[in-house]
């Protein structure tokens, strides 16, 4: 396990892009691990397309499992990347409905929303995959923090 699940009080969610010579990174903060996965999904969605005016949305159930929280984040983000590419649509957001940590590992279940590319949904970057490179997910005094890099 990378840390103890649980909420850090008084933390606002945010995310930002991080410079990388060839690819793209993001940093995100949230009060709890589920919120962090959601915020990372929002960062991924913003990298991939301008979905601020998306109207015709499609929801898809998602579930991923992994041995630790970093691997769960890798699996969560890649599930979103892979689904968007398979559907040929843009990721809009993802919500975590259940997040479990047990001695057997981690599970995240939720719902992702996608929108077809059209005049209102313009692509930004083709994200090939989320990577393990410098992937950090940890509970710190200022909240749950993530740093992740995508191959674009």
């Amino acid at each position, binding site marked *: 396990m990378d840390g103890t699940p649980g909420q850090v009080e008084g933390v606002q969610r945010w995310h930002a892009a991080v410079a990388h*010579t060839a690819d793209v990174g993001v940093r995100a903060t949230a009060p709890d691990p589920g919120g962090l996965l959601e915020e990372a999904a929002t960062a991924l969605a913003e990298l991939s397309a301008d979905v601020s005016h998306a109207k015709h949305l499609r929801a898809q159930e998602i579930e991923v499992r992994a041995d630790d929280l970093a*691997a769960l984040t890798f699996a969560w983000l890649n599930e979103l990347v892979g689904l968007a590419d398979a559907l040929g649509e843009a990721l809009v957001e993802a919500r975590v409905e259940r997040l479990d940590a047990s001695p057997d590992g981690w599970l995240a279940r939720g719902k992702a929303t996608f929108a077809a590319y059209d005049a209102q949904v313009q692509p930004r970057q083709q994200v090939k995959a989320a990577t393990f490179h410098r992937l950090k997910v940890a509970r710190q005094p200022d909240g749950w923090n993530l740093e992740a890099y995508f191959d674009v």
Partner: protein
Amino acid sequence: MSALAAEPHLALERIDAFRWRIPRSAQAGMRVDGLVFADDGLIEPLRDDPCLSQVANVATLPGIVGHSLGMPDLHWGYGFPIGGVAAFTLDEGVVSPGGIGFDINCGVRLLRSDLAIADVKPVADRLADALFRAVPSGVGAHTGRRLNRAELDDVLQQGAAWAVAAGHGTADDLAVTEEGGRLDTADPGQLSERARLRGSNQLGTLGSGNHFLEVQVVDQLLDPSAAAVLGLRPGQITVMIHCGSRGLGHQVCTDHVAVMDRAVLRHGISIPDRQLACVPLGSPEAHAYLGAMGAAANFAWANRQLIADAVRRTFASVFGLDHSLPLVYDVSHNMAKFERHRVGEREVDLCVHRKGATRAFPAGHPGIPDAYREVGQPVLIPGDMGRASIVGVGLPGAMAETFGSTCHGAGRTMSRHAALRQLRGVNLIDELRREGIIVRVSRRGLLAEEASVAYKDVESVVGVAAGAGHVRPVARLRPLVVVKG
């Protein structure tokens, strides 16, 4: 956008004008030295760049032999650096999907024509439009038809030969494609359903990012006798295609990195970066990955073959039916290959990882097509869309030092965001048109991300590869029409 903190400097020792050593003592766990090919101009910006640490990290992997290598276009990747080469023994070594990259068998192919610049200039806009329509490109690009399971299995098994058998090329194309356009180690059974789904409607598409299709002119011969063997002459029109295995290959890498991430500790391997996840070459996980990688590589060769066919049909419609556009060569720059190399006094079988690095075998090597055996394997090195690309041939120095490898491009110097910021307000389409370059792109922001300012000068990069004795430059190609996703 947050800037990244500078990396701590690794010990870097100058060997000569083109070589720098990262000694084993520079970082705990290094099994071999790092060896980076760069001149003073190329090495300076790398001193506080994470790519040197990545060269050192690769040197910690089990079974690595020779050096952990950085080509002259070296830059920061994920896990392995881009422009990284590493070779591993079959008994003690590993395979690492991060050492091949997500875009398995990303590569370059070059077609030559019997057209001259005067034929293209008057119809350049019409040609650009026709190529942009003929080859789907950009985020979410697809062909509009999904291959069924049996068709996709055939593609994954047969590679470029599948496309040729379907009427999208000739046997001559296969003769001048690396490995004949097919890895016989491919095992489609190792692909996930998600990988199949991502690839089934993307065969024949260019993709996005740094992938491109360019109509070029040979504007300088650097080695006329080798150029003649490659069928290149001054003022001749060529077409260069750069793309890979699309979403199918991306998913193969994702799936198998996850498998190896879980397996790496079980195999007793310690890695400094989780993206370097790897397993012993004899393990079931390695067998599964190499089968899937081979299938994805075959998909990429079929993809480039179909795009070449679409280019040929487009040229036929624009210029008439006499322009067959023979293939000069098709080379991969993201792949693991089993090859025999000399290590010390012995010839040994190795698994050579090339991530953003091009194979560059010298004259006489049996892996080179008969037509080029006397001059060496063609090496295709794209630059950027505003300057030039270089065609070269491999030299014996590459076999001696880099397991027959060299640079794969110019190499980025600037993040995509930094390029966008620097070029805000600049109309690159108009600027390039003033330079005589017609551009078609599915989104304008991509042009800034891929602008010349974001890349090293390919001629200085190739100059180092030539100075080190790895490549002989043969011809310089200047872009006339650029299609990007």
